[in-house]
């Protein structure tokens, strides 16, 4: 079976290096990197802004490009975190802790270089794990019935809500709000219009792009306007990025450990990237011989979290592609993109659309090579881009959002939806709700309803079926465990000990 995978992978490389596809990967990585560097823009906004551009494209280059945007913007975010102390994407908040002190010491270039090595190494490991784990998972996935699918999605939602950031209860509430948004529109089973209030434009439901851009575009601008001050003028040359032998030696084991942590968490549906980087950082600090150096420019404090987030990113694609269950909001958005292109992720994807699946894996690796090749000569440009004032950035970005959403379905109504979700998102953010689980709930909601309905129909309305099937029972068990641990932590926290919660 491994042999078969390797053969398929070889063909995947064939797909990925077709000049036409390669060009789109390059474009995606470049634009993703550019948007990721821009203050206040993360992978979610990068993908949602560029998603409408892919509608006219064939599915394979479209997905390859979107994946390129994803890891390009993720790497770009690290640049802002290290050089300007601006974590535009929450997982990079940890990178700031040691990355920015390194910049102050004049070691910013080294930090970027180590980040690049860490992310390349971690992504490569993640891709190898993907190559071997996906076919295995597919074999199991074919045994999945509605009960199993419901249970694993339940786990994904609970984990996604509780482990994102901030209060777990609030995270779960946001996942439920997202599922409710997924309900809007015509019920596929009965044809009844739900929550459309007579608006025919809502019959197809809330649009994914409008929701994502409202929550991660407009909401972010509302939050950052007049508050995000970009300052600092770092200048980094190619030479500064080369770490010394001693620095590499110091960073090597943290990179390996960060990668392992990321791989482990990537396999778990719903665990967000933020929590992964926090755990990698905390772990590194705990086992370090001199933990007091952390927070003052310790290279390991940059290497481990960045490695963990990049390996997690790659491994996250496994549940997304083989089960159709996104691991985190970014994956949910990519899953939505696949659906828009008429591709239903799931075990059948790997057998029926082998070109997409293996082409995607091959393109990941090529994309990561391109990322390294691009960043070495372009680092000077990125540093310039970092200094684009926010006052020019957000009006231009608003325009891109508006015209992008319009072109999705040539509908101005959907631009209005962006406005509404932007306001709703801003209210939620003001009340300290994490908004990312909304997207997860929105994408999973209809699938949860459908599979629960089928499972109950098959079992004649007996919910015990969910724990009778062993696979399903295992997922339910883990879900209960996750909820139990959270309640335990919450009760203990009330007794007075300070709670550690990543923001």
């Amino acid at each position, binding site marked *: 079976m491994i042999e078969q995978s390797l053969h398929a992978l070889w063909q995947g490389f064939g797909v990925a290096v077709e000049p036409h596809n390669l060009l789109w990967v390059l474009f995606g990585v470049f634009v993703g990197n550019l948007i990721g560097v821009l203050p206040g823009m993360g992978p979610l906004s990068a993908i949602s802004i560029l998603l409408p551009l892919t509608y006219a494209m064939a599915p394979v280059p479209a997905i390859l490009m979107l994946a390129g945007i994803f890891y390009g913007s993720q790497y770009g975010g690290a640049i802002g975190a290290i050089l300007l102390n601006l974590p535009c994407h929450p997982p990079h908040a940890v990178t700031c802790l040691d990355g920015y002190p390194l910049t102050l010491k004049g070691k910013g270039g080294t930090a970027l270089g180590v980040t690049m090595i860490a992310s390349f190494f971690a992504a490569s490991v993640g891709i190898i794990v993907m190559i071997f784990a996906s076919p295995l998972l597919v074999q199991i996935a074919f045994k999945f019935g509605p009960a199993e699918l419901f249970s694993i999605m339940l786990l994904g939602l609970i984990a996604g809500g509780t482990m994102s950031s901030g209060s777990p209860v609030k995270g779960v509430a946001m996942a439920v709000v997202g599922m409710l948004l997924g309900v809007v529109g015509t019920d596929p089973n009965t044809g009844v219009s739900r929550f459309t209030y007579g608006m025919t434009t809502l019959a197809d439901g809330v649009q994914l792009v409008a929701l994502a851009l409202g929550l991660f575009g407009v909401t972010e601008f509302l939050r950052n306007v007049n508050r995000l001050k970009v300052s600092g003028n770092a200048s980094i040359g190619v030479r500064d990025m080369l770490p010394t032998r001693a620095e590499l030696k110091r960073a090597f084991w943290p990179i390996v450990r960060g990668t392992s942590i990321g791989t482990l968490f990537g396999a778990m549906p719903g665990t967000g990237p933020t929590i992964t980087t926090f755990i990698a950082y905390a772990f590194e600090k705990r086992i370090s011989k001199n933990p007091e150096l952390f927070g003052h420019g310790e290279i390991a404090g940059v290497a481990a979290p960045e490695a963990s987030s990049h390996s997690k990113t790659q491994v996250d694609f496994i549940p997304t592609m083989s089960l159709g269950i996104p691991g985190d909001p970014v994956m949910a958005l990519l899953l939505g993109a696949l659906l828009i292109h008429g591709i239903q992720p799931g075990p059948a994807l790997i057998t029926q659309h082998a070109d997409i699946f293996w082409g995607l894996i091959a393109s990941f690796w090529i994309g990561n090579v391109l990322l390294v090749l691009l960043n070495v000569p372009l680092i000077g440009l990125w540093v310039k881009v970092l200094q684009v004032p926010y006052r020019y950035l957000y009006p231009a970005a608003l325009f891109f959002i508006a015209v992008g959403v*319009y072109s999705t379905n040539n509908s101005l109504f959907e631009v209005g939806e962006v406005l509404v979700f932007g306001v709703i998102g801003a209210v939620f953010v003001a*009340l300290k709700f994490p908004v990312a689980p909304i997207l997860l709930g929105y994408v999973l909601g209809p699938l949860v309803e459908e599979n629960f309905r089928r499972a109950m129909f098959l079992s004649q*309305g007996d919910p015990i079926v969910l724990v009778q099937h062993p696979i399903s029972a295992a997922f339910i068990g883990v879900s209960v465990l996750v909820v139990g641990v959270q309640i335990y932590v919450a009760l203990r926290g009330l007794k007075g000990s300070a709670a550690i919660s990543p923001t």
Partner: protein
Amino acid sequence: MQARPFLTEANRDYYAGSLMLVIGAVTVWQGAGYRFGSLTRMGPGFFPVALGVLLALLGIAIAIGAVRKRSGVETAVAAPAEWRAWACILIGVAAFVVLGKYGGLVPATFAIVFISALGDRDNTVRSAFVLAVAMCIVAVVVFWWLLQVRLPLVGWG
């Protein structure tokens, strides 16, 4: 000038929980209008009502947490409200929708960039104008000409 902020550490979760409770309750109320069905054959109302109940319960849990947390110390001072900037951003997007329908791509582009740019204190009318004109050029070249967005450049829709 800094009046007592509307949201404090102590009452934020209280409002947050109440909001969830209200959304949940409204969902249950509206969802009850659809056929509920049974577990075996669920009607269109089953799932929304179940979610509504769940959300209301979560809201109560959040609000209870807020009551318990009352003793909590007041930490970071909240950033002041940016009413003008918020209004500019929202009016800008709304203007794009209206002008997109009745004015065409160029007026809509100009409006969204110009109005939202005025929200930033450091932008002058002049700099907002220059930025808006620049984005109009991008709109025409990239979106209208290259990507063929189906909005007339200028015109009454």
